[in-house]
């Protein structure tokens, strides 16, 4: 059923698909199966090898719409929205999902205005309303203290951005078949008002917390800058990234890209560990949808313990070194 197609917007960088693209396909597959429709994905890129495009199919896409042009080297919201506007008018998808990344959160609201439809931000759950086939989009709001379910009854496509890491990627099936449709480039799409001059990628301790499976965060409980080093060490041991409370960032113990919470990043890692962090509402706003939360705090009444799955109540300066010691021992014996 073509008029019920479910679409996702894949993201690529430097000739490779980003993992969020596969997360979106997991979401999309479930919806398409319920609707009995096809799952399609759009890729806008300057160069993506055939094997990468095939990966979309082996991760459940039925159709890949591929727009390929040197002008698409960098993600520029206006240009991407122009292309999507064309594709939406041409193929009339029922649903369009994008990742709640800096790209998705810029392009989709821009597109929503161009094509006159609704958009729900940063969803963590999606389902289909049985009677109508409408998309039910559920998202945390007011700092994760409520869950709101939203729908777009009368406008198409129904659009949502999806929180990265909130879905598992389905396993790859290389026997799946699908179609790759090359879409011809229209120079009118290219908006030259905004251009990317450069991207600093190799800056010392830059992190993309949204993409991390494990985030280990430190707060004011660390007491001083030098002590923050043990958070770094723990994160390295876990193969995770370093997060920080606003207090730690404001004191200069960590840089802003590490800040988790209301005025920092909202994340959904598989494991979130908060060490010497009280768990103020503004902090919790950024971590509530984490799969597993661990707290280390000397105060058994600290807020963070209320949302934690596991908490050690005690002095972090004896607990963290012990974690490092036991993990080190374990690794050596494996």
């Amino acid at each position, binding site marked *: 059923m073509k008029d019920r197609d479910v679409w996702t917007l894949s993201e690529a960088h430097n000739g490779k698909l980003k993992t969020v693209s596969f997360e979106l396909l997991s979401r999309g597959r479930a919806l398409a199966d319920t609707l009995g429709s096809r799952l399609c994905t759009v890729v806008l890129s300057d160069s993506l090898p055939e094997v990468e495009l095939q990966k979309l199919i082996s991760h459940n896409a039925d159709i890949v719409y591929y727009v390929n042009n040197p002008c698409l080297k960098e993600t520029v919201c206006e240009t991407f929205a122009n292309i999507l506007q064309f594709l939406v008018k041409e193929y009339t998808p029922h649903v369009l999902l994008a990742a709640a990344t800096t790209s998705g959160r810029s392009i989709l609201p821009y597109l929503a205005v161009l094509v006159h439809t609704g958009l729900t931000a940063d969803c963590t759950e999606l389902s289909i309303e049985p009677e109508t086939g409408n998309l039910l989009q559920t998202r945390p709001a007011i700092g994760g203290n409520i869950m709101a379910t*939203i729908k777009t009854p009368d406008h198409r496509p129904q659009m949502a951005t999806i929180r990265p890491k909130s879905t598992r990627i389905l396993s790859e099936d290389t026997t799946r078949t699908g179609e790759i449709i090359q879409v011809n480039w229209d120079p009118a799409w290219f908006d030259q008002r905004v251009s990317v*001059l*450069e991207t600093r990628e190799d800056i010392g301790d830059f992190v993309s917390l949204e993409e991390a499976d494990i985030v280990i965060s430190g707060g004011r409980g660390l007491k001083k800058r030098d002590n923050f080093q043990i958070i770094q060490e723990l994160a390295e041991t876990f193969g995770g990234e370093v997060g920080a409370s606003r207090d730690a960032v404001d004191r200069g113990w960590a840089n802003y890209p590490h800040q988790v919470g209301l005025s920092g990043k909202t994340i959904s890692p598989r494991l979130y560990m908060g060490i010497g962090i009280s768990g103020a509402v503004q902090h919790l706003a950024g971590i509530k949808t984490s799969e597993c*939360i661990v707290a280390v705090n000397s105060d058994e009444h600290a807020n963070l313990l209320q*949302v934690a799955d596991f908490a050690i109540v005690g*002095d972090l300066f004896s607990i963290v070194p012990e974690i490092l010691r036991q993990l080190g021992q374990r690794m050596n014996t494996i």
Partner: protein
Amino acid sequence: MHIVVPIKQVPETSNVQMDRETGTMIRSGSAAIVNPLDLYSLEAALQIREQIGGKITVITMGPPSAVKVLKEAIAMGCDEAVHISDRAFGGADTWATSYTLSEAIRKLEADIVITGERATDGDTGQVGPGIAAWLNMSLVTFTAHIKEISDSHIIAERLVEEGYQTVRAALPAVVTVVKEIATPRLPTLRGKKKSMQINIPVWDAEALHAKPEYLGLKGSPTRVVKIETPKVTRTCIMVKAIDEESVRNAVTQLIQFLDDRDLVPVQKRSGV
């Protein structure tokens, strides 16, 4: 240079405590404040004005009480304010909000529009990009540093997943900013005085020549169908660690707990 800064009135949440039983927020009163993330866009605007001159107009769409946030912005040093208020605007989603604000911004003939990254209540971050689309302005989102600004263009660094991305955008432009952009200043005495005397015009749907079918709840493509307070599904295993032995035991338990969830790192030996 005409800088327009849309700010939102949101419920105060900083004193909020969690209800231990139900896991819901206990709001200590329901004081309304300037969206905390809009303080950064206000500061960015003030700094641009200091650098290249111009005028800052701050606008908000909201009920009569929202005039309070405009006065706060004036107290911080903004020049003028417009209150966008009409019963017809009520219940607007981000599509209708960005439409309404963009009609006001069109009327103000802005060169640059600076918004917060998102509002702390709705938490969508969709209004800024929406305004850019309505007005066909260039869009620069997640801005962490402004490196250069002139009457014709802006060069700014955006905080994206890969790092800091430098973009050049032609004006007029909509710029959404993150906390890293600047440290908000406090209101001044002179500003406070001005905010008490200033006459803030109220623009309704008619003043904006807005399309009635695009306004408020009626003009909103989305509908909220359900609001739920998530049940606290987490049950916390709490272990106390007071001396050397209990620390050791607590950590062993933690590692077991993580191991059961496949979260313990396994170090690969070199060559394997």
